[in-house]
């Protein structure tokens, strides 16, 4: 009850500030208000969720979703009186679409911070020992789930098209569109994985395997995705040939990100050892640096290609390098990051929630199509994990729960969905596919953490993390 009252009070304060806002101020000024509102509101909702044995991050996401622009667009505004609406036109809803765009900057910072943590949780010796298992699970998941979603949607297209367009799609368009759908549907969320492991203080084979598979899946999907974009553009656009240099650029992008990230990890460890003070400031500036590096374009010599570095990969590599090659030097940094993690998670997942697009659920046929993909994906993940798990000889105590741990989706999937829409902006199917994918992420972002938390608790791994805060230690 205390939480609900606090959330309502907070919403009223922000609502009042927006109603009485000074007409002379610009959008960016309101962003500060939004940041504070999202952080506190998400935290309170998370506590509310924790009270009913649900993951806190589902609370953070739900709060973002409730105050974000998507739900407003679906008709929430009809609940307010006309006079208030008229006043609010300058700032609807509590978090507007423009603010969500402004808040992306915060999101990039948070992604870097979460990725450093995720990298710091990966122990190379354990990973090398489990290499075969992880590789097999990763590939089986990506290929199996993507294949199943692709196959079912393709087969159903004549009867119940999952991607609906005004004009009929060519076979090639269908292949490419469903290819993207399958590939992106097979993805997971490393940020959700790391946040939930931290929240549940979980450690054990399920937590470690989930984290490693999730990160490796992300890398694999990014590679396949880049290749599919290149092939897709070559096949659908007569003016764009499939180019080997494009694939080379993708390789350089991934390799460059990992190498630079590892190098920055060493620099950060050196810095921490020599500076020791103001680590919070240092962490924020470092994450800002990762985010900024990700926005730069670098020309690849001898080609017409430009590459841009992946902040997620860089930060991941930096965390992994620090934890595995400079463990003692970097310990204070990981401790600082752990202390900062709760505000970051609250803000990051609330912004992710505000970004989710629920418009697909407003149309019955689209909602049905999304429902079909959700079911097919769930069956696919369950079947693939069960089958591969048996073949690999995974312990039965946690094997049956692994598929639940591989259901959440969030940030990376959202980014890939946006990229597809941008890359094929002229195609009639891109918008429909984008909406469908955003709807899928909304479902998996909300339901996934609940399933994952249940898996961690029922496997007995929750609460097993040592006080140092690192898995496996």
């Amino acid at each position, binding site marked *: 009850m*205390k*939480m609900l009252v*606090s959330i309502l*009070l*907070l919403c009223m*304060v*922000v609502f009042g*500030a*927006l109603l*009485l*806002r*000074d007409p*002379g*101020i610009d959008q*960016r*000024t*309101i*962003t*500060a*208000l*939004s*940041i*504070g*509102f999202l*952080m*506190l509101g998400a*935290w*309170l909702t998370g*506590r509310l969720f924790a009270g009913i044995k649900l993951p806190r991050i589902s609370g953070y996401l739900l709060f973002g979703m409730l105050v974000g622009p998507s739900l407003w667009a679906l008709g929430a505004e009809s609940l307010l009186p006309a006079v208030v609406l008229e006043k609010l036109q300058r700032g609807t809803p509590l978090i507007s679409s423009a603010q969500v765009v402004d808040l992306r*900057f915060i999101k990039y910072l948070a992604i870097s911070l979460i990725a450093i943590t995720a990298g710091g949780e990966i122990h190379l010796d354990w990973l090398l020992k489990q290499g075969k298992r992880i590789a097999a699970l990763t590939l089986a998941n990506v290929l199996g789930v993507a294949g199943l979603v692709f196959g079912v949607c393709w087969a159903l297209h004549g009867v119940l098209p999952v991607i609906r367009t005004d004009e009929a799609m060519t076979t090639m368009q269908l292949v490419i569109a469903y290819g993207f759908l399958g590939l992106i549907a097979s993805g997971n969320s490393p940020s959700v994985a790391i946040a939930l492991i931290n929240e549940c203080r979980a450690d054990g084979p399920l937590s470690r395997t989930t984290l490693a598979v999730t990160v490796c899946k992300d890398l694999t999907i990014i590679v396949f995705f880049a290749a599919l974009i290149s092939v897709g553009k070559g096949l659908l656009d007569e003016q764009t040939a499939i180019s080997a240099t494009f694939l080379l650029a993708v390789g350089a992008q991934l390799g460059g990100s990992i190498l630079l990230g590892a190098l920055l990890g060493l620099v950060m460890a050196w*810095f921490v050892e*020599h*500076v020791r*003070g*103001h680590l*919070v*400031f*240092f962490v924020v*500036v*470092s994450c*800002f*640096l990762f985010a*900024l*590096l990700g926005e*730069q374009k670098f020309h690849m010599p001898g080609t017409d290609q430009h590459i841009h570095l992946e902040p997620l990969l860089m930060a991941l590599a930096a965390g992994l390098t620090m934890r595995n090659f400079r463990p003692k030097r970097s310990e204070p940094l990981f401790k600082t990051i752990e*202390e*900062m*993690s*709760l*505000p970051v998670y*609250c803000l990051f997942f609330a912004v992710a929630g505000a970004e989710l697009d629920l418009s697909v659920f407003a149309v019955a046929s689209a909602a049905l199509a999304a429902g079909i993909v959700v079911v097919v994906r769930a069956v696919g993940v369950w079947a693939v994990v069960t089958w591969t798990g048996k073949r690999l000889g995974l312990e039965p105590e946690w094997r049956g729960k692994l598929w639940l741990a591989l259901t959440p989706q969030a940030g990376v999937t959202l980014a890939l969905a946006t990229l597809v829409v941008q890359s094929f902006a002229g195609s009639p199917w891109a918008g429909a596919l984008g909406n469908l994918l955003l709807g899928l992420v909304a479902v998996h972002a909300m339901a996934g953490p609940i399933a994952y938390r249940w898996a961690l608790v029922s496997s007995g791994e929750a609460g097993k993390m040592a006080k140092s805060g690192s898995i496996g230690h």
Partner: protein
Amino acid sequence: MRLLIGLTILVTLALLASSQRFYRWRRTRLGAALTTGGWLMVAIGFAVGPFGANFVLPEQLLEVEPLILFCLGWIGLMVGLQAHRTLPRAVPGSVFALTGIDMLLSVLVLSATTLAILAVFDVAIMSALPVALLMGVFGAGWSAEVRSLQRRVHDADHVMPVIRAAAGISSLAAVAVYGLLFKSFSIDMLDGITWSAWDMTLGVMISLGVGMTMGLMGKWLMSLAGRSEGEFLVVLLGLVTLTAGAAATLGYSPLLVAALAGAIIVNFTGKPLQRFQRVIIEAEQPVAMALMLVAGVLADPRLSPQAVSLMLALVIMRGIVKLIDQRIIRRQMKIQHNPPALVGLIRQNPLAIAMAVGYAIAPLGRSELTPLSGGQVVMIVVMIGVMAEAFAFLQHGSHEQPEDMTP
């Protein structure tokens, strides 16, 4: 790419600033003079800004306006935390009298000087009034940092607490007056700059209302957070950002509203208060550093003859006001000669930079209807501060230094 290079330079400089060698240099007289007021950070900000290497542009800084507002909110909260209910009993009445006289003299003398100089250059009184009043507030008070003076001057130990206490109270007063002026003036393309008593009254009422609401909310949320460090950090960061953001959204001063919230927290919060104060004070240096950097980037050195004349006149007039303050202290404490520590009164209150940054990013500071742009106001405040610091450095250096120089 330029921003990236700029940031890399800043990180490298921060690295150098954290080295043992730099730490030793900070303990020298020159090092202390440059670093205690944050002038080195202002210089670095200026060096990477549009009038230096052009790595960071003011427009890019405004992209991170929420971060600047957060810093202002933090500073405001820190100032407000000084307003404990025991303050009137803990501090002698003479200190309050000194602060009151200094504030009154500063606002009257410096505002009149600004109005007079701008009138010479044919600026209408109404256009000049907001800048004039703000210049008066910026000139009030002095730096609360007295350690660098205390190390060398044992005979002035009894003056130090007075300087420090008066600096703290004058910060509270400056934030209050600044907040009062913040919303009293409105800009309209047709009517120009107008002043309204109603807007000022409403501004005070709303600032009080928002500050009190935020303070009470902070107290309530802190009790919910309990002993968890992570949850406490969420409350602290969320509260500062929400308070500063709400004030800026409504068009009021984030410094004043946050200070009011701080005053409520310090007077009504029980056990968690110590932790709250500790975290707030621990982060003072990085927050101040960030604001000084921002000031350096925002500072616009393209000063017109009217701005240069104004700056020089303000330096002189502020010096005269501080001489009067020195006399008041001597009379209050019955001291025959000026103890060297009283030189500290000349040094500018670092809060003036925070207030100038707050003005520069507010609609009034960005308006073309004012005679000085926000960037020029920041530049003038920085220059007055630097000149005051240099004067204090030379004055203090001219006194005999019989004490051991080693820390």
